[in-house]
């Protein structure tokens, strides 16, 4: 039975347990995007990285695929980890600002800047749709194809799939398109917990109550800062996405 330490707390687990499972058992939260308890771990989103203090000479490894071994010492919230998470989330937000899941993660982990041009991609390649189709629905109608920047989820030859049973599991589990960010201006990056740079507060509404403390939008943007809106903010301006203003 491997014994390991997470954030200084010792725990003994069954062989075959991952560090993510061990941390959750201890009630220590680690953010994930590509993980789902009903699917095999994938290790692609890298959001669950933790610092391994010994053995691997202080590396950051993905907790979901890291086997809990005897003697491991793990830090889930060290400075290195926090910094890495923040930049990764900044990059995620820029990739798919329309995803509520990603925006929520960004606010929770203190992302305060959006320095990358938004891309509005529908897919972050977490692989959940592929895995649920393969492992839970036993179909395997979709999968990854190509490599690098051209890698995509698709059916073979992009043809109508003969295997797909239209169960909708892939739509259900997708962190990007399942929950759309419905802030008043969802196209701006950094929604900040369903608040946005033009917040639903007294500046705009007579009877609104600003009940989120602190109100990040006001803290960052101020009620009327138009200059922080991206060129792609207005769907009609979508063509100008790419270069920063």
């Amino acid at each position, binding site marked *: 039975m491997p014994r390991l330490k997470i954030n200084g707390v010792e725990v003994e687990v069954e062989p075959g347990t991952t560090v993510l499972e061990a941390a959750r058992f201890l009630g220590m939260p680690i953010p994930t995007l590509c993980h789902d308890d009903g699917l095999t771990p994938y290790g692609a989103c890298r959001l669950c990285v933790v610092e391994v203090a010994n053995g691997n000479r202080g590396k950051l490894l993905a907790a979901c695929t890291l086997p809990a071994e005897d003697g491991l010492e793990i830090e889930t919230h060290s400075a290195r980890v926090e910094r890495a998470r923040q930049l990764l989330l900044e990059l995620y937000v820029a990739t798919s600002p329309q995803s509520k899941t990603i925006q929520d993660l960004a606010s929770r982990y203190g992302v305060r800047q959006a320095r990358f041009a938004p891309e509005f991609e529908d897919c972050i390649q977490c692989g959940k749709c592929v895995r649920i189709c393969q492992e839970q629905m036993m179909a*395997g109608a979709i*999968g990854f*194809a*190509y*490599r690098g920047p051209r890698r995509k989820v698709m059916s*073979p*030859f992009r043809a109508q799939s003969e295997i797909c049973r239209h169960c909708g599991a892939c739509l259900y589990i997708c962190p990007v398109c399942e929950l759309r960010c419905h802030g008043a201006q969802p196209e701006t990056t950094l929604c900040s917990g369903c608040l946005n740079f033009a917040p639903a507060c007294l500046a705009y509404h007579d009877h609104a109550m600003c009940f989120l403390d602190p109100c990040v939008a006001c803290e960052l943007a101020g009620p009327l800062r138009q200059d922080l809106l991206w060129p792609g903010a207005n769907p009609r301006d979508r063509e100008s996405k790419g270069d920063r203003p």
Partner: protein
Amino acid sequence: MSETTTVELEKVLQHWPTRADSLIPILQQIQEQYHYLPEHALRTVARHLDVPLIEVFHVATFYNCFSLEPVGDHLIQVCLGTACHVRGAPRVLDRILRELRLAEAGTTPDGQFTVRAVRCIGCCGLAPVLRVDAHTHPHMTQGKVRGMLKKYQKSAPALVEQG
């Protein structure tokens, strides 16, 4: 570009054991014979090896050697490795594309040439290098491009390998 017949495909499949790790060698042989991987060949291979079609498709689209589209009569591979880059290879590539009126690497409309960038064929001492079919051309410059292309234009069989 020859037609792929099921009989010839069967011959390739019989040559290899019916195991998952035969996939890549089989695809390599098909690619070599037909100069691309036709859709029906991939479907047949998937059935034969009992590997999900989507996985076969991923392998076929992952590796540089495989092409889902037929290649031209002559394959021009311009090396863009570091040594060649530093000695001006990108300009040679641009030149070739302009001469053949291609906006980017690909096949000319008349099917004569397919131009591709490759990363390092290991002849760095002769940079910039390019390969047309099996023939390696050393010390390329923009000035040599037109003359080199002329040699291959409208000559039907690919040049025999040098050496």
